[in-house]
């Protein structure tokens, strides 16, 4: 993020590409995509992306590796039992904070 021009360019690229993906079919296409493989591909994209962005980044996000591991385990367990988004988030962040405070105390 060295300079304002680069940041502005990056934001424009992100927003522009995203907008075009949404606008082109809404404006120009009126036909459905029937290709089963392609539809399935698009269906699985979010799961692959979210998983790849979360792991291994979550382990180092809080500061110390130990806090990241505790937070990740906490989040996975809460999510496995289908707790709500906020409960999973607060539980993991709280666990990370407690770990960081404990590590900081030593």
């Amino acid at each position, binding site marked *: 993020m060295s300079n304002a021009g680069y940041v502005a360019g990056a934001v424009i690229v*992100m927003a522009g590409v*995203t907008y075009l993906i949404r606008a082109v079919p*809404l404006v120009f296409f009126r036909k*459905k995509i029937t290709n089963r493989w392609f539809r399935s591909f698009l269906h699985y*994209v979010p799961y692959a*992306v979210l998983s790849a962005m979360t792991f*291994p980044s979550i382990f180092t996000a809080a500061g110390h590796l130990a806090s990241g591991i505790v937070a990740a385990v906490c989040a996975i367990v809460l999510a*496995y039992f289908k707790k709500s988004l906020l409960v999973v*988030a607060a539980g*993991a962040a709280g666990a990370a904070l407690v770990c960081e405070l404990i590590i900081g105390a030593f």
Partner: protein
Amino acid sequence: MTDKKTDFKNGFKNGVPIMLGYLAVSFAFGMRVCALGVPWWLAGLISFTNLTSAGQFAGTNLMIAGAAFIEIAVATLIINSRYFLMSLSLSQKLDSRCGLFKRLSISYGVTDEIFAVAIGKGGSLSSSYMFGLILGPCIGWTSGALLGGLFSSLLPQIVVGAMGIALYAMFIAIIIPPAKDDRAVLFAVAAAAAISFCFAFIPVFKIFDGGWGIIIITVIVAAAAAFLFPAEEAENE
């Protein structure tokens, strides 16, 4: 005229639950990217102009890393490609009075949740309804990032770091429950995580660290999942 007003109101009402959910996730986004050095107003601007979660987070990470624009563009394209399909089916549900300018405006607000509500509504969709539906989530998503960013600039560093975990935890909350019930999703989640670990820690794969890594993982994993587990006739899309 009153017809349009009623449609707009109904749309807005249906968008309120999405607005609240977006506020929380975007707040976590704001805290996370501010912990990485992005100013609060930029977090808000990115949220307002992108209105996506995974896509803008990946893009912001790449921007922080100083990636080339082409890398940011391709990553954004792949990650957000599913909106293409959503816009496509939405296109057929918009009523015939919906002209070019309205279509261009509605395009801004096609997200997973807005799409789901719009498709679930039944009947054709008026532009007034869509504008009402999009407004709340847009406010929630933008203000959440601004507030998250501002909030984290007031907190001590140790708390900001821990709070940054919240966004990843939310991602986990999104992917784990369906992975538990659907082995195809479990495959996608596990395979993506495994390859991501390899790219991060195995020296040979270091070249894939960053934007191209996420692109490669997404394409390979989603393609393999689609090949192994072609979706049953997809719901309403």
